[in-house]
């Protein structure tokens, strides 16, 4: 029986998130103190050694990323917290910020010290104005107590653009521009916000940092999957009995998540598919449910861990209909900067609506596959590259669903 393990959500339900005294009484801000007593290189080495990889979806080694910014000589550097969680089916960052905002602030301040930055931004999605208020309160308390040791944090609010979850688009948005991704390289750790070295990490990544400092890299590395250690916060949605949030070690399998924690499929129906990682994730069939959720195991089956959204569909769901809706999402959210995405998402949506209406034929299936492959390779940023995944994985794993709707 799989069980929860709360590292990121360690204080959830135990402290009043808007009382800094509660956070401090639970050991809060001690890790920042500890970090500041260490040499910057040693601190970065500790984070690197823990094996913590970015929890926003890209899975890059966190300490390694920090080291890139640390190595650049610059009078000004920035730390940015990506709280623009826009992947449909995902609300874990909201849960983290609502229940323990100070753990995020502390993680950011530790990063600031490590790379030599005294200014941080939290870019919080516009859909969460109530979270922005909470964060501002938490920041005011931290300033009043003087616990951030001179590290300044400002909250900026997004305005409903999914693409701003991509780190360079997010940076453009903080600068007051349209949120269009930049050409890379250079990458943000070297040239980022206002052309200065900038570390952009996800909310969940930052919330892990204080615990890693407190308990040590070796402790953290021993949890979960070897190459993607620690825990992952998952949000269960769709046709599952327990539609809620769980934090589990990364060696937990998909089946354990859906059945042990999620309580299985609603109304005693049968399982059909699960889409993990948000709306850009792959669709996974029953035969792959014993895969552990860690980054590399998911990639190996042609899926992703992504944001940790777990969207369960029962036997009654029409996969082609759901994928058509998802294709509509990407057409709407494409920023329009690069043509493979701007045109590709539009054509893909058209083809999927045609399939869904029962007017598609075998040629359309080949077109979908070819277009998807081209977009995966040719799009500028992660949005366009991942947009075809729901189409391509359902063509592969659920071909019968398409066959049944052919003209």
């Amino acid at each position, binding site marked *: 029986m799989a069980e929860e393990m709360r590292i990121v959500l360690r204080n959830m339900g135990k402290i009043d998130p808007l009382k800094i005294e509660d956070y401090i009484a639970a050991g809060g801000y001690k890790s920042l103190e500890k970090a500041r007593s260490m040499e910057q290189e040693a601190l970065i080495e500790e984070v690197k050694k823990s094996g913590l990889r970015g929890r926003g979806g890209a899975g890059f080694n966190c300490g390694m990323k920090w080291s890139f910014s640390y190595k650049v000589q610059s009078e000004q550097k920035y730390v940015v917290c990506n709280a623009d969680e826009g992947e*449909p089916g995902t609300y874990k960052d909201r849960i983290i910020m609502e229940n323990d905002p100070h753990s995020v602030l502390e993680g950011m301040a530790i990063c600031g010290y490590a790379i030599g930055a005294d200014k941080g931004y939290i870019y919080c999605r516009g859909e969460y104005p109530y979270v922005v208020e909470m964060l501002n309160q938490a920041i005011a308390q931290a300033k009043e107590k003087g616990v951030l040791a001179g590290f300044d944090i400002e909250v900026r609010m997004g305005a409903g653009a999914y693409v701003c979850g991509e780190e360079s688009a997010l940076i453009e948005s903080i600068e007051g521009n349209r949120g269009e991704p930049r050409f890379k390289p250079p990458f943000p750790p070297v040239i980022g916000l206002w052309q200065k070295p900038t570390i952009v990490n996800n909310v969940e990544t930052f919330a892990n940092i204080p615990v890693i400092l407190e308990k040590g890299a070796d402790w953290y590395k021993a949890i979960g999957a070897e190459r993607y250690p620690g825990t992952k916060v998952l949000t269960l949605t769709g046709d599952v009995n327990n539609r809620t949030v769980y934090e589990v070690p990364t060696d937990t399998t998909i089946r354990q998540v859906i059945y042990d924690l999620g309580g299985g499929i609603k109304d005693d129906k049968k399982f059909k598919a699960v889409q993990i990682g948000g709306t850009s994730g792959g669709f996974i069939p029953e035969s792959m449910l014993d895969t552990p959720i860690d980054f590399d195991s998911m990639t190996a089956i042609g899926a992703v861990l992504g944001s940790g959204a777990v969207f369960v569909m029962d036997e009654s769901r029409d996969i082609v209909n759901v994928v058509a809706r998802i294709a509509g999402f990407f057409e709407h959210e494409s920023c329009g900067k690069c043509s493979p995405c701007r045109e590709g998402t539009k054509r893909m949506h058209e083809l999927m609506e045609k399939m869904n209406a029962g007017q598609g034929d075998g040629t359309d299936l080949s077109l979908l596959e070819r277009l998807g492959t081209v977009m995966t390779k040719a799009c500028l940023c992660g949005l366009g590259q991942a947009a075809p995944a729901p189409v391509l994985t359902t063509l592969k794993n659920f071909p019968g669903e398409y066959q049944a709707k052919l003209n």
Partner: protein
Amino acid sequence: MADYKAIIDRYKELPGGIIEAYHALQREYNYIPEDAVDYAARVFDMSKAQAYGVATFYSYLKIGERGQYIIRICESAPCHVAGAHEVVRALEKELGIKMGETTPDGKFTLEFTECVGQCQATPVITINSKPYRDMTAEKIAAVLAECQ
């Protein structure tokens, strides 16, 4: 109502502050007045085209009037399978307008949105950003009655 120039001026020292200024305008008016874009361009030292480009890029920002209560219906996959279209139908019927329109009295505007991050209780709608969860067609009348 505060003058839009006064609202925008509050953000002129903030680097990249035009989006925050637009948010502040929307907190006051629920939309961005057309003239305010011109003024924002001058304050933030950009062309009117750029200021307009920013205001039209983001789906939460809107130039030109909309209602006192902005009702957004999430149509992302988890809400889609939970029956968001039935909620849409009920809202359109109750208010007598189509998605994207505003009631003649200027009270309600209906908009589609993508995920609002409340997927534990789908389908979800928001009214002026406040989420209403586990929505059904039957609940619509009561929810609208709250908007006074």
